[in-house]
C-alpha cells in the first residue's frame, strides 16, 4: 500500500494539469470589485481557488462543510457542528489565516478560527489561497489563507433571495438577503440562521449525540458609494453561536460555548494623480463564554477588541509594474478570566511589487516588517512568478517566509502562559503546474514547508503545562485539482471536479507524522445537468490520521458519499428546490477519535430568487 501514493502522484503528474474548481457565477457579473484587491494583483504565482456560489449554497451548513468537500484542506471536527479546525498542507489550525475582506480575523485568544462559527452565506466570494501569505495577511498565513470577501458593483442590480432549509436531526435554517444599486450606491444586506438538535445516532453504537445542539445567527451589511475620484465602502457583519458541546463515545457532553463576533470595515479609495490610495479603519470584536456545565450559569470567558488603521497606495507604472505600499497599525485589547487584561500594538510596513515582464511572464516580490511588538519581529518576504509556457500550460513558483505570533492564550493564560515566547517562523517553496485544455483544467502543486520555534504546550515541573518554542516540523506534499466539463448536447452537461492531496507533516524531533494530519484526502463531485435540473454525487475519502504523537494510535480512514438534486422553475421570480442525502451508505465515521459523525441524513431546501 505504501507505493500507492506514488502511483497516484505519478498518474497525476503524467496527466498534468488547474481547475479553478468551478466557473464562478460571480465572474459573470459585470465590474465586480473586491474590497481586497491584493488578493488578485499580488498573488499571481500562488494557487488561488474560488468557490462558486452554487457550491457554497450546496454546503451551506457551515464553512467546514463548504471547504471539506471542495478543497484539499482537512478539518478536524469534534463531532458535527462542534469546534472545527483546519489543517492546510499539514500545518496546524493557527497556521491557517482566515481573511475577511483583507483583514486577518483569527481569534486573538486562540490564533485560529472555528470554521463552524462562520456562515458561508455571509460572503459573495470565498477564495482559497494556498501557501504562505504572511507578507500580505500577517500572522498565521503559513499553510494558506481562506478569503471571505464581499464584492460590490455599480451596475444595475436588484435581487432578493430567500432560502429555507430543513433537515434531519431537527435542523432548520433560513436566509434572506437583498442587493440593490441605485445611482452611486450599492447596498447588500442579509441575515441567515441555522438551528439543529443535532441528535444523530452513532451508527451501530446504540448511542445518540444527545448534547450537540447548536444555533448560529449571522447578519451582514455591505455598502459602497461611488465618489468623484473613488469609492467609499462599509462592510459589516455580526455572528452569534450558541452550542452545546457533544460528548464522545465514552464521555457525556456537559459543556457549552457561546460566542459573538462583530466586524466592521470602512474604506475610502481615492485616485490621486497616478496613485490609487486607500485609507481604511476597522474594528473587530470577539467574545466567548465557556460553560463547563451547560445547565449551570457558571462560565469563563473573554473578549477582545481589535482596532486597525491602514493606509495604502498603489501605482501601475508603464502598465507593467504594480507597486503597493502599505502601513497598518493594529491595536488589540483583550480581557478574559484566564488571560487578564492585556493589549498589543503592531505597526506593519508592507511593500508589494508585481512586474508583468510580458504577456507570458509575471513575477512579484513582497516584503513586510513589523514594529512595536514586544517580541522579535521577523522580516518577512515572498517572491512568486508565473510563466505561461503555452496557451494550455503554465508554471508557477513561489517562496516565502512566514510567521505566527503567540496568541494571548499562549502569552497570558493563567496558569501556564509564557510571556517569553517568540513567533513561530516558517520557510516554504511551492512549484505548481496548470494545464487547461478546452474544458479540462488540472492543477498540480508540490510544496515544502519548514517550520521552527513552533509553540507547543508541554508539561513542566509540578505538572504545569506551559507553551514553549520547541518543535520543528517539515511538511511536504502534493495537491492535485482536476476539473472537467463535458457538454453532452444542448440540454445536458456533465461537470466533474476532484481534489487529491498527499501530505507528509513530520515532527523532526520524533520523526513521526503530526497528529490529525491524514496522508491522503480526496474529494470529488460529479454533476449532471439537464436543463433546469441538476443531480450530483459528492464523495470524500479521508485517510487514516494519527492521534498519538508516536503514531501508535489513529482514527480510521473513511469514505462517504452524498447525493443531491435540484430543480429550478424557469419563471421569474425563480424558485429552486432540492435536497441532499448525506452519508448515503450510513457509514460510521469519526473525524476526531471517539467522536462519531452523523448517520445518514437528509436536507431539503427551497430558494426564491426575486
Amino acid at each position, binding site marked *: *500500500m505504501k507505493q*500507492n501514493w506514488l502511483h497516484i502522484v505519478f498518474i497525476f503528474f503524467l496527466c498534468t494539469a488547474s481547475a479553478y474548481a468551478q466557473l464562478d457565477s460571480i465572474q459573470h457579473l459585470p465590474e465586480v470589485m473586491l474590497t481586497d484587491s491584493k488578493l488578485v494583483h499580488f498573488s499571481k504565482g500562488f494557487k488561488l481557488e474560488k468557490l462558486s456560489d452554487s457550491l457554497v449554497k450546496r454546503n451551506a451548513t457551515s464553512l467546514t462543510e463548504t471547504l471539506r468537500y471542495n478543497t484539499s484542506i482537512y478539518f478536524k471536527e469534534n463531532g458535527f457542528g462542534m469546534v472545527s479546525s483546519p489543517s492546510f498542507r499539514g500545518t496546524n489550525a493557527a497556521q491557517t489565516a482566515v481573511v475577511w475582506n483583507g483583514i486577518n480575523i483569527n481569534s486573538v485568544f486562540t490564533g485560529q478560527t472555528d470554521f463552524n462559527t462562520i456562515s458561508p452565506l455571509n460572503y459573495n466570494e470565498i477564495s482559497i489561497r494556498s501557501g504562505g501569505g504572511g507578507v500580505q495577511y500577517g500572522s498565521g498565513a503559513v499553510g494558506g489563507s481562506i478569503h471571505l470577501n464581499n464584492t460590490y458593483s455599480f451596475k444595475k442590480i436588484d435581487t432578493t433571495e430567500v432560502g429555507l432549509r430543513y433537515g434531519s436531526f431537527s435542523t432548520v435554517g433560513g436566509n434572506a438577503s437583498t442587493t440593490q444599486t441605485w445611482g452611486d450606491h450599492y447596498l447588500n444586506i442579509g441575515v441567515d440562521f441555522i438551528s439543529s438538535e443535532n441528535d444523530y445516532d452513532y451508527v451501530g453504537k446504540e448511542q445518540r449525540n444527545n448534547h450537540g445542539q447548536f444555533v448560529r445567527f449571522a447578519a451582514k451589511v455591505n455598502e459602497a458609494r461611488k465618489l468623484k475620484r473613488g469609492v467609499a465602502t462599509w462592510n459589516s457583519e455580526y455572528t452569534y453561536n450558541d452550542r452545546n458541546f457533544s460528548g*464522545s463515545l465514552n464521555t457525556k457532553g456537559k459543556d457549552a460555548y457561546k460566542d459573538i463576533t462583530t466586524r466592521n470595515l470602512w474604506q475610502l479609495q481615492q485616485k490621486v494623480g497616478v496613485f490609487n490610495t486607500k485609507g481604511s479603519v476597522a474594528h473587530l470584536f470577539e467574545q466567548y463564554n465557556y460553560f463547563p456545565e451547560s445547565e449551570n450559569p457558571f462560565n469563563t470567558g473573554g473578549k477582545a477588541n481589535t482596532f486597525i488603521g491602514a493606509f495604502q497606495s498603489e501605482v501601475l507604472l508603464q502598465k507593467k509594474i504594480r507597486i503597493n505600499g502599505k502601513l497598518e497599525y493594529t491595536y488589540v485589547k483583550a480581557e478574559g478570566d484566564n488571560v487578564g487584561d492585556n493589549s498589543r500594538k503592531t505597526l506593519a510596513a508592507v511593500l508589494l511589487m508585481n512586474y508583468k515582464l510580458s504577456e507570458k511572464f509575471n513575477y512579484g516580490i513582497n516584503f513586510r516588517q513589523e514594529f512595536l511588538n514586544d517580541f522579535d519581529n521577523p522580516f518577512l518576504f515572498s517572491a512568486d512568478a508565473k510563466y505561461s509556457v503555452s496557451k494550455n500550460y503554465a508554471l508557477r513558483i513561489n517562496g516565502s517566509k512566514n510567521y505566527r505570533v503567540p496568541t494571548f492564550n499562549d502569552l497570558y493564560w493563567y*496558569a501556564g502562559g509564557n510571556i517569553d515566547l517568540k513567533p513561530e517562523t516558517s520557510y516554504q517553496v511551492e512549484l505548481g503546474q496548470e494545464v487547461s485544455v478546452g474544458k479540462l483544467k488540472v492543477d498540480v502543486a508540490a510544496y515544502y514547508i519548514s517550520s521552527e520555534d513552533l509553540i507547543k504546550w508541554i*508539561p513542566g515541573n509540578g505538572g504545569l503545562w506551559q507553551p514553549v518554542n520547541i518543535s520543528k516540523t517539515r511538511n511536504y506534499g502534493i495537491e492535485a485539482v482536476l476539473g472537467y466539463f463535458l457538454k453532452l448536447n444542448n440540454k445536458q452537461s456533465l461537470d466533474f471536479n476532484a481534489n487529491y492531496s498527499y501530505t507528509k507533516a513530520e515532527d523532526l524531533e520524533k520523526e513521526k507524522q503530526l497528529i490529525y494530519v491524514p496522508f*491522503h484526502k480526496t474529494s470529488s463531485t460529479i454533476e449532471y445537468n439537464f436543463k433546469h435540473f441538476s443531480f450530483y454525487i459528492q464523495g470524500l475519502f479521508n*485517510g487514516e490520521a494519527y492521534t*498519538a504523537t508516536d503514531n501508535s494510535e489513529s482514527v*480510521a480512514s473513511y469514505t462517504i458519499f452524498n447525493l443531491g438534486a435540484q430543480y429550478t422553475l424557469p419563471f421569474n421570480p425563480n424558485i429552486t428546490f432540492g435536497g441532499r442525502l448525506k452519508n448515503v451508505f450510513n457509514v460510521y465515521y469519526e473525524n*476526531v477519535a471517539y467522536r462519531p459523525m452523523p448517520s445518514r441524513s437528509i436536507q431539503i431546501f427551497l430558494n426564491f430568487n426575486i
Partner: protein
Amino acid sequence: MKKIIFMAFTALLFAACNSDDDNVQSEYIPAAFAKGIFITNEGPFNNGSGNITYISEDYSTVAQNIYRNVNGTELGNIVQSMGFNDDNAYIVVSNSQKIVIANRYTFQSVDSIKTDLNNPRYFVSIGGNKGYVSNWGDPNDNADDYLAVVDLRTNTVSSTIPVAFGPERMVTYNNKIYVAHQGAYGQNNLISVISGTSVENTITVGDVPNSMVVSGSTLYVLCGGNPSYTGTETAGSLVKIDLSIGQVTQTYSLGTTQHPSSLTMDGTNLFYNLDGKVYKVNTASISLPGTDIISGNFYTLQAKDGKLYAADAKDFASKGSLVIYDLSTNQQIQDYQTGIVPGGIYFNE
C-alpha cells in the same frame, strides 16, 4: 479525455484502498494476571480510552490493554486509578464517571458502578464489604466534593459524605480512611479522617497534599506546596502524622520553589520526585531533600522490595513507559512500553 477521468478514478480507488490497511494483530492474553504489576494508563485526555498494562512479576509476560483484550470493550475516558478488594479490581474511570469492576486475576468484567459518581478519583476498601471513592463533583464548585460509600456486596453507592474541597488519594489505617485534599484544579491543605459515614476530624497539613504512605502508626504526607502561578507560592513539605493521636508531629520543609510529588516507601526509606530527580530519605533521620539517586521526570513512582517502579508519561500524547530501577545500585534494570499517560502502578499479589 476519458483516459484522464479514468485515471482520476483510479487514483480515488487507490487512495480508498488504504483504508484496508488495518493490520490488527490478535494480542496476547495471559491465562492469569496473578503476581504482577498493573499500570493504569489514563489515555488521551479528550478523545479516547485509557487502558491497563500488565507485567508479570518475573518480567516474562507483558500484556497491553488487558481489559479490552479479555472483555472486548474499552474501559473509558481517563483511567484514573484502581483499588482492590478480595478478588476484585475497582478501576476508576473519571471522565466516563464510572468504576469498572473486574476480577483481578482473570480480568473478566464483574460489574460496574455508574451512578452517584461525579468525577471520581480514587478507591479504597475497608473491612471487606465497604469501599470509598473520592469525588470532585463539579470541578468549578468547591462545595460539592464528596466521598461515595460503596456497598461492595451490591456494588451500589449506599451513601455519600460531603468533604472539604479537592479530595484525592486515600489510605486506610485502623478502620479509618485518611483522605488527602490535594485541591482538584486548585489547592487545599487538609487531611480528612473518615470513620464510618462521617468526617471524624480534619488535620491541617502543608499546601497541596499529593501523596501519602502509612508506616506503622505514622502517616507521611508529601505536600507539593502552592505553585508559583498562584501568586502565593509555598514550599513543598513532608508532614509526619501520628495516627494514634491524629496530630501532626513534625513538618519538614523544602525550598519555596521546590514542589515534590509521588511519595512512596520501601523498608525504612521514603522516595519522591522533585525537579527531575528521585530523592531518597531515611525515615530514621529525615532531612530534606535527601539524596538524589535517579534522574528523570516521572509521572508517578512506586517502591517495593528493593525496586523502584517509575512511570514516564513522556509528552502525554504518546505511549509512555515503566522503568524499573534496582534500589541497591540505583541502576535501571527494565524498561517497558505502557499505554498513553501511565498514571498508576499497582501490585497484584
